[in-house]
Each structure stands twice: as structure tokens, then as C-alpha cells.
């Protein structure tokens, strides 16, 4: 117990310098192994489909795919944030349905496009806010809270449509959200890309994102660091509701109709994409890029198999098998933590 007062330590150990240098790139690579894995699988599948069917790798089909996947791409961004906090939002599908129904009803009632648009977003945000409040302030598990929301929101959509689909007419700027194009690129796809970039920035470059990851890793630690974790969770779920409503508007304007069941199963598609992309359902690890690739992977499997004219009776079997194959390749060949057995 004599020795050294610390400040002179770093100089004293010259003989293994590479252990101390901050290996940023290597770190990134090893953190993102999974990302490389799933990206390789995506490329693999794309190449396979390109060879199997000539119509796959055409500009037309690619743009088409972009437009089809735009709502998923938009919602996957916020879902990635939600899941990174170790939460989940099962209500996005219903909110999407409700939004599509509501915008149709409002436009039929001759509301101004802008007000209708804003109102629907507010309704989505309100549902999300309620979710967030119950989850963060009353501390009830997100799964059960958003499941309950999913049920009652779907009920609301059913109530306002009466089970029918309601057509949307008019060709305002609102309609171009779903169906419009800008230099042949679907407007919805452009919006999706913008939202993805914003989401990526939030997750990786802002305090909000850091706290989201931290909450997923160890909520109590973030709380002890003096962060208002309740507010962060509240906002995350609120945004989730709002963005789901936005996606609902896009789908409604694309279909030219609102109905209470357009969002059925949507939440599962999105959650699957997030998990496939490498974000952990247990929180603390989130990758925006992975989620985006996840959406494309699932989308391409559907699109490619359809273009290949696989019989509808076996298409699901192949979809499931390909998905399984994709994750196995991804995790097994580009796997993490090989030290354990």
C-alpha cells in the first residue's frame, strides 16, 4: 500500500499499446456483425429472386416495393425506439386502421384536408399518450397496456365505419401522400426515407436516443442518473401513436378508402422486422438500419415469391421457411459471442 497516485499511469505501460487505443472502427464492426449478416441475407435473396424471375429486378418493381413498404418503413422507425426501451406497442395496427377510417369519415364530412390530417394525427398521438401514461406513470407492462389499446381502438374504428369501407375522394395534396410521385419516386417512399433518417439521428445522435437505449439496458440506472425516464417513455409511445396514425393516412389515401381492418396484423409485421433486424426485445440494443433491412427482407420474401408464382397453398410454407433460413444464416454464420458453447 505505498505506490503511485494514478495520474502517471498511462505512460508507465508502454509495452502493449494496442490494448489502450480506442478502436472505434473495430468496435463498430463487432457491434454490427449482425447488421452485416442480415444485409448479406437480403442481398442473397435479392440475387436469388433476380435470377428466378425477370420481373423482380426492374425499376418498376423496385419502386412498387418501396411504395408498398412505405407504411411499414415509417412505423418500424418508432417501433425500433419503443422496443429498444424494452417496451412494445401492439396498438399500432389498430391505430393505423382507426386513422384510415377516421380520415375517410372526416373527408366525407367535408372537413378541410389539413384539419382532418392534423386531427387524425392528434387522435393517434392521444392514444399513444394514454398508452405512455399508463405504462410509465402507472408502471404497467407495455404488452398488456398496448394489447388493451389494440382492442378498444379497433373497436372505435369498427364503430365509426360500421364495418364498411368508406371511400376517400378528392385529389388534394393529401391524396398524393399515398399515391403521388415525385420524379417517379413515390411520395410515401420519400417520406419514409426522411423519417428513417430522423429516427436514426434520434437513436444514435441525441440524448433522447441515448436514454432510450439506457432505459432498455437498465432503467433504474438511467433514473439514478437524474433523467426523467417517465417523460421519455411517455413521448416515445405518444410518437408511436402519432406515426402509426400517419401511416394509416398514407394507406388510406393510397387505397382511396378507409376501413377498420386495414391494420390487422400490421403490428406483427413491424415487430418482426425490428427483431429480425437485430434489435433485442429485451431492450438496450437497437439498430435503425437493421429494422429497415428487416422490413425489406420480409417485403422481398413476399414480393419475390409472388412474382415467382408460387402456389398460394404453399407460399406460406415457403415464407416461413425462408424467414427461418434468413435468421439462421444471419445469427449462425455471422453470430455473436462464439466463446460460449
Amino acid at each position, binding site marked *: 500500500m505505498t505506490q503511485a497516485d494514478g495520474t502517471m499511469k498511462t505512460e508507465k505501460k508502454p509495452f502493449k499499446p494496442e490494448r489502450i487505443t480506442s478502436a472505434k472502427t473495430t468496435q463498430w464492426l463487432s457491434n454490427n456483425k449482425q447488421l452485416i449478416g442480415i444485409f448479406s441475407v437480403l442481398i442473397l435473396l435479392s440475387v436469388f429472386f433476380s435470377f428466378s424471375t425477370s420481373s423482380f429486378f426492374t425499376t418498376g*418493381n423496385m419502386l412498387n416495393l418501396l411504395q*408498398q413498404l412505405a407504411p411499414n418503413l415509417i412505423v418500424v422507425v418508432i417501433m425500433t425506439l419503443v422496443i429498444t426501451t424494452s417496451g412494445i406497442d401492439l396498438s399500432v395496427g389498430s391505430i393505423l386502421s382507426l386513422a384510415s377510417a377516421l380520415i375517410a369519415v372526416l373527408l366525407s364530412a367535408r372537413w378541410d384536408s389539413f384539419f382532418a390530417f392534423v386531427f387524425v394525427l392528434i387522435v393517434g398521438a392521444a392514444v399513444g399518450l394514454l398508452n405512455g401514461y399508463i405504462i410509465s406513470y402507472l408502471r404497467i407492462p407495455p404488452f398488456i397496456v398496448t394489447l388493451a389499446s389494440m382492442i378498444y381502438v379497433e373497436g372505435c374504428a369498427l364503430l365509426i365505419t360500421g364495418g364498411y369501407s368508406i371511400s376517400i375522394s378528392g385529389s388534394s395534396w393529401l391524396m398524393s401522400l399515398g399515391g403521388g410521385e415525385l420524379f417517379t419516386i413515390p411520395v410515401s417512399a420519400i417520406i419514409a426515407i426522411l423519417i428513417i433518417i430522423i429516427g436514426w439521428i434520434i437513436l444514435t445522435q441525441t440524448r433522447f436516443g441515448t436514454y432510450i437505449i439506457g432505459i432498455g439496458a437498465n432503467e433504474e440506472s438511467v433514473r439514478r442518473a437524474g433523467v426523467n425516464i417517465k417523460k421519455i417513455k411517455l413521448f416515445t409511445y405518444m410518437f408511436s401513436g402519432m406515426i402509426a396514425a400517419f401511416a394509416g393516412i398514407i*394507406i388510406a389515401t393510397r387505397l382511396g378508402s378507409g376501413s377498420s381492418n*386495414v391494420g390487422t396484423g400490421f403490428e406483427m409485421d413491424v415487430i418482426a422486422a425490428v427483431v429480425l433486424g437485430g434489435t433485442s426485445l429485451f431492450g438496450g440494443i437497437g439498430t435503425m438500419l437493421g429494422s429497415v433491412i428487416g422490413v425489406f427482407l420480409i417485403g422481398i420474401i413476399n414480393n419475390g415469391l409472388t412474382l415467382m408464382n408460387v402456389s398460394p397453398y404453399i407460399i406460406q410454407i415457403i415464407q416461413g421457411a425462408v424467414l427461418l433460413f434468413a435468421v439462421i444464416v444471419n445469427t449462425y454464420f455471422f453470430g455473436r459471442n462464439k466463446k460460449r458453447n
Partner: protein
Amino acid sequence: GCSSNSGSSGSGSSGKKITIGLVTVNTEAYFFTESIKGAQQEAKSLGVNLIVDNPNNDPVKQSNDIEDLVNQGVNAIIVDSIDVKGVIPAMEKAAKAKIPVISIDAIVNSKAVSTQIGVDNAKSSEQLGEYFNSYVKKNMKEPVRMGVVGALNSFIQVNRQNAFLNTVKKTPGLKIVNIVDGKNVQQTAMNAAQNQMIGHPEMNTAFATGEPALIGLAAAVKSQHIENKIAVFGWDLSKQAIDGIDQGWVKAVVQQHPEQFGSEGVKAAVKLAKKQAVPKTINAPVTIVTKSNVDQFRSLFK
């Protein structure tokens, strides 16, 4: 706009075998399965390619499937719409690419549709309603208490439900005890129907809007042992429904001829692809199956 090239190149290749796309609703219900079968048989006999897509009840996926077919450059597309309004933009894309669209079953009001082949669900349900009214008049003295098993997630079935209910209103003293949502799943429909029967022991008639609802309703009737005090009406035959007709408690079932949708659809599609004229609407008949004519359907459900 982007897909017009591939579309025209597809329809221009007259030397190649004609390819027709069929986008159905799902492959789980008898109705759609039969229509696919009819289409496949017709396609075989006409020597054309048939691509079948299954959007599995998802209207968004259905639109995507249609767009995918447009991109593939098929010669004609047959659609059984899930959302008769939501499907229109995709159909318009097809029309823009000069691909004729044949709408079967559900009626789509759009210029993009070249030919409509269908059963008018509302009209047929009204027919069943009239049958119900006359049945009640003849056979039932006690006040009519009716339970409905529906599927609110299906537009077509909501349509049938409302048309039926509108018609049976004419029966004096009729009261709807309740409408329950079977969600197009047999097990859910059965539980819902059972709850309804327990809640309303006075219930003496029931209406089911589709195949899963009717099967669930039938199972509920059997498990509650109320075969001798209930009269069941509904849509879409099944083995259970035929058994019920034989035992006397299922009174009438609307049966469509879905295989005809398929075969007529393919016929029209091939003609349209060859630029031949086809009538704007082709009607497919329905049959109201009762004890008197059930034998001709028996072979379908062995």
C-alpha cells in the same frame, strides 16, 4: 406511370401463352377455394397460364398483389375484392397499363373494371330474408327472437347482415336479441354463439353471415342441445349445415356457385386478353338450399 412499359410489353407478346392473374381473398374459406378450383380447371381447358395470389384477407396486401401482377405484365387480372373501394387505385394502375380487370364476387364500382361477374350479396341476402319471412309466417306462432352471428371484419358479410336484417324487419314482432362477432373464425364464432344462447334462452332463430359463422353456430346449437327449438338460416353450405338441414333445424342456406366465378372469370379474361368483346356484367346465380333441394349439393361435402 412507371409500370406502363412492362404492361404494354406483356400484352403485346401475342405469340406467348396468355397469362392471367387471379387475386383471391383467402384460401381458407370454401368459397374462395372453390372459385380457385373453377378458375384452374377453366384455365387448363383453355390452355392459358393462371397465377393465383392469396392476400389472406389483407386489403393492403391485395393491392400489392395486383401491382405485382401488373409489374409482371400479365394479360388480364381477375380480382375478388376484399375492400371494394380500397382496391380501386390498384385496378386503375392495371387499367393504365392496359391490362383488363375482371372483378368477381364483390362488386367494384370503377371504370377500371372491364367486367363484373358476381353475386349481389345484398340482393341474395334479401332473398334469404324473404324466405325467412315466409317461413316464419307459415311455421312459427311464438314471437320471433333472432340471434345473429356475424363477421364484422368482412365487408361482404356486413353487407349480407345488414341486407338480411333490413328485410326481416317486415316480420311482425321480430326482435333481434343480439349480434355477436365471430371474426370469421369457427372457434370464436362458436363461443360467441354459445354465450348468446345462454344469455338469451328465448332465442328461437339464428342467422349466420358466412361459412365459419355458420359452422360455429351449428356447433353451438349442438352443444347447447337446442336443436328442437331453434331455426337456423345462413350463408354458405358445409357438412355441418347439411347435417343440420337433414336434422331439420337448419332451414335455409344461401349457396353460391363459386367455381362458376372462377371459370366465368377466366373465360372473360381470356376473351378480353384477345381483345374480344365481353359483357359489362355477368350474373352468377345463387341457390337457396333447403330440405327440398339439398340432395344436389350433398356430393360437394362428403
